[in-house]
């Protein structure tokens, strides 16, 4: 995909939860999306990694109801999750992880500042 993350200001209003969390289990994985061919060395081709359902252990809730675990969907996207991956997760009301790169979409300090501001 390799587009930059969406502007945080566009995404944050959709977030029901903003949590600092770690992936503890990949519960399920979806089918691999259709792939586009491209010459060797091409980037921004836009092929997506399969959707996943993952369980998050929540260390801190920055927005939303207090929870210790969340089972959420990682949509077909340009990133994939595995146990041990961590960072700030923005999750919408449908329990879908927001942000083009999940926990690597925005610097945690920027999210914290946006939540304060």
């Amino acid at each position, binding site marked *: *995909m*390799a*587009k*930059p*993350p*969406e*502007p945080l*200001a566009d995404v944050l209003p959709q977030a029901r939860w903003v949590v600092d969390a770690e992936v503890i289990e990949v519960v399920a994985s979806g089918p*691999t999306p259709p*792939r*586009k061919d*491209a*010459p*060797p*060395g*091409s*980037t*921004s*081709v*836009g*092929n*997506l*990694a399969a959707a996943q359902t993952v369980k998050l252990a929540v260390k801190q809730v920055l927005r939303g109801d207090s929870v210790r675990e969340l089972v959420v969907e990682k949509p077909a996207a*340009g*990133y*994939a*999750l*595995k146990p041990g*991956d*961590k*960072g700030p997760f923005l999750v919408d009301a449908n329990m879908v992880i927001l942000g083009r*790169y*999940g*926990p*690597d979409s925005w*610097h945690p300090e920027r999210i914290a500042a946006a939540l304060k501001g």
Partner: protein
Amino acid sequence: MPQISDRRLSSLYSTFEAQHRSNPSLKLGQEQVFQLLAQIGDRSGWSSNKVLAELKKPGVSREQQVALVQRGMTASEKRDLAAIVDSGQVPLEPSAKQFLDAVLGRSTTVTPPPTNGLTITGDQKNGLSGITKAGAQIEAINLSTAPTGRYRVDDTMVVGKAGQDGRFDMAKLTGDMAMREGDVVRIRARYDDGSTSDWVTINAKGLETRDTRNAAVALFRIGLSDAGNGKIAVTNINASRQISEPGARLQLTNNRTRESFSVTLDDKGNFPANFTVNGRAGDSFTVAATDGKNNVDFREAVGNVTVPGGQPGTQDLVPDPALHKDELDAAGKPRFSKARFTGPLFIDGPKAEDVAQGQIGNCYFPAAMAAIAKINPDAITRMIKDNGDGTFTVTFKQRDWATGRFKDVPVKVDADLYVRSFGGPLYGRSTNSNDARQMELWYPLVEKAYAQWKGSYNDIGNGGLVNDVFEACLGQNAEYMALSWSNETRVFDTIKRALDAKKPVGAGTFGSDESSRYTNTGVYADHAYSILGYEQQGTEKLIVLRNPWAESEPRNNGPNDGIFKLKVSEFMKLFQSLMWVE
């Protein structure tokens, strides 16, 4: 010829006499005196070359130089030297004569060092010489070359150090600041306590027979704005840096009315306050300059500058490339509007840090442009021409497959860009500002022209190759290496060789089928990066990369500006391909 008994000294002085005959203005300065004294001081057990090297060693005081020569000087050589000073036909610079008198042990009238100042003496044939406080560091800037660099007027270069007697000699500016005849050079002394002398400004002389270098002009710093009542305010948009050399005279000619206006720049190389010319928004002006010696009739123009505005948005100057399909609604209509950007084409020239990828899948393009901007910014400056009417011509290179040669492909665009609801550009932007009046234009315009050339933003926004952009911008063949078929040494050497040869380099990560290896690394799958440099610290080899998003990078890599370093071993794990210009 004075009576000189030493054969080698006599031979050397004959050479000076011959040079003087062919150039009667020649005087013996510091350099020539060193050569003479090296022949005299060589009886102390040192060769004349060793003496010469010791005399020229930085930080050696005049007293030490005198003592060094006296230690090796015979009575006969002393007589020879006195003959040169007293009856030699080749005139001596005052400072040179004073030096030789000191070697001869004659009482001399020594110019006292200024108590808090700096005096420049003689000409600059052998560099800057003068007198200041003992031990002071000498700093200088060439104000004739600085405007088109990125120098502020106090971005000085350390060129020498005064000895214990406060004197300094042969202090030379180098690189793009090297002095030529007539250049305006500003010098100051920096004392041990950190304070400085007043600036001393000179016009370099003695370097060439004629001043042939005209005043350079930083066209990209000239800001024009409609001041109303038919007046255009002319300012420096970056007043900490120069428009041209101090005292240069600029002429602005309105291309609509053909009316010309001239102005003399102040002692900082800036426009005087409240300088205006006649015109209106949308007018373009041709700029010419003279340093008083060259181009005095303003016949040679530097380029054009345009007054922003006119009737923004009411007239599309050049049809724009269509949006990417993701930004069209179900009916195929654009979901984003356009705005006319009127900022400067360049602010201090193209830089890698200017470039920021927009919401479009063309990472290969900004990665390649940032790599070129880092290593060969002039190539970008040459690519883009401001037509002076609100349009710009970007010239790409296309390979002619019949001949194998590259041919020019000029693409004309205006500065209307698709914008988000908050006004910032939707696609490629510059990092300095999102404001339509301030954003540096070069990167979004080159991207727009590339989209125009290829058909639309959709045609460039679904992936591509860094190599294609290198070739399209530089007209040179680009190479590709699959890293899995190589090794750390070969990869590092390839990067080093290319960057040392001023050739841009980029790299690509694995595709999304390998995306799980990237989570939490600060590096992203299916993505292109610019390679800005390399470092070798002992056995550790590092590669300096830049994310074209202008942010997002591995942790503990300084500010979140997209620039980071990876060990070559980490680079090999995270990257799939390397691309560079041959």
